[in-house]
């Protein structure tokens, strides 16, 4: 049996609970151990049950605050060290400037000797080295595959492509921007209309600055470069240009020449950039809609492309559970 603690019960947290509830047998078979959720923390309290939380009502859409094991007023940081969870799943929303509260959750969990799985990217593009160094000192594992590309196994490529060095990254890693640019291309919509559509479909936040301004992609790029290329960068090292000034005329002119305007995140020669590029329509990076695409250029084995859905609750939950299984496999019964 492996105990889990979940912090954050938003879109991603709910999907994690649903996945554990519905796939508990299959997940258990993969590692020959049962995964048991013992704590779910929210801002104003927590569901706690040392024998394992009954997830059915939550999986059916029930209110977390009406769960029989709900304990109001429990503070995550105060309780985390005594939680039964051996693996802490951090899925709170990202604060792009401070990384909080996720950063404190991650550091506190590691300090308490717990393994950590995170879908929250803020702590990792702001304090990557600090987190990884502390984890090394405390001899715990930290996995954050869901922070970039959700379930796309891009960070796992560090292990699967260990025989070569990644020398360059080119990536479409913000689904919202890619959706907007795609609509401008296929439907000839102006930027404002495509953005409104993205908001109506739930792909863009009410304040879309992080996505269309390029900051979300920049944060993910930092994580990719630090993890896959061994760099020690933060988001402040990224040259960033958003998509807000892309015009219908520009999209149309590019299209006529067989090109697409794309927001690409680059890492090469120690430099990081999120900017606009003309990409041939035949390129593997010419993905449309919310699809992510990542090119890893290696020193000896050529180019590798990873393409898939990079956002959404179920996708992030799949990425989180992949990391949980990776860690749980080696844990004692």
């Amino acid at each position, binding site marked *: 049996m492996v105990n889990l603690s979940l912090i954050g019960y938003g879109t991603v947290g709910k999907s994690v609970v649903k996945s554990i509830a519905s796939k508990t047998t299959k997940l258990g078979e993969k590692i020959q151990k049962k995964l048991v959720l013992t704590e779910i923390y929210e801002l104003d309290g927590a569901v706690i049950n040392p024998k394992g939380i009954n997830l059915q009502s939550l999986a059916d859409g029930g209110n977390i605050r009406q769960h029989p094991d709900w304990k109001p007023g429990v503070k995550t940081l105060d309780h985390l060290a005594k939680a039964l969870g051996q693996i802490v799943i951090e899925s709170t929303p990202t604060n792009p400037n401070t990384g909080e509260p996720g950063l404190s959750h991650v550091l506190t969990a590691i300090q308490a000797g717990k393994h950590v799985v995170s879908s929250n990217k803020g702590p990792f593009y702001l304090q990557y080295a600090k987190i990884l160094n502390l984890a090394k000192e405390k001899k715990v594992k930290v996995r954050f595959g869901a922070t970039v590309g959700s379930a796309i196994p891009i960070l796992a490529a560090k292990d699967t492509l260990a025989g070569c060095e990644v020398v360059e990254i080119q990536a479409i890693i913000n689904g919202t921007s890619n959706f907007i640019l795609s609509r401008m291309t296929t439907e000839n919509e102006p930027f404002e209309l495509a953005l409104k559509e993205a908001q109506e479909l739930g792909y863009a936040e009410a304040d879309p600055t992080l996505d269309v301004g390029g900051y979300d992609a920049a944060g993910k790029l930092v994580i990719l470069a630090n993890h896959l290329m061994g760099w020690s960068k933060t988001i402040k090292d990224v040259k960033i*240009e958003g998509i807000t*000034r*892309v*015009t219908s*005329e*520009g999209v*149309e*002119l*590019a299209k006529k*020449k067989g*090109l697409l*305007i794309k927001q690409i995140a680059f890492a090469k020669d120690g430099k990081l950039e999120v900017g*606009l*590029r*003309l990409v041939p329509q035949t390129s593997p990076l010419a993905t449309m809609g919310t699809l992510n695409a990542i090119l890893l250029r290696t020193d000896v084995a050529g180019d590798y492309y990873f393409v898939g859905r990079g956002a959404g609750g179920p996708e992030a939950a799949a990425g989180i559970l992949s990391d949980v299984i990776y860690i749980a496999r080696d844990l004692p019964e």
Partner: protein
Amino acid sequence: MVLELEVRLMDAPGKLIELLEPLSKNGANIQGVFHMHGDVEGNLIPVLVTFLLPELHFETNLNKIKKGLLAKGIEIVRLSAEQAFTISFLALGHVFQTDFVDTIKRLSKPGIRVISIEARFKSINDPSAVLFSIQIENKKKETELVQLIDEISKEKDLVIIKG
């Protein structure tokens, strides 16, 4: 423009100087000389010379070089320009209201040449989209072009989308 010259020289002292003299006398900047000893035919060694010939009086100087080599009895096996290539980029913003002629002039440098432009705009007062195709004579010129583009885009507040 960078050129490659291939000749066959007698394997004897002083022959290389004979080869290089017409080049250096006519404005060529020698960048490399390569003896292909593995391909010797009889007493003749293939030699490859890479040199830069400035655009000013390019044709005249090239003809003089050819004549000079001929006069010394050196047969030209091959004389070719390094492959030039074209870079495209899209400029978005007030491309026409920010002195378009100045932009074109500043993008025209030795070894860098604007070969076509294509534009889209609603009206001349609205932001426009202009696709530039620029021929550069070699890879080294790419860095110079990128610097030029960055400089112009900052000064004129244009969004540049590179190919």
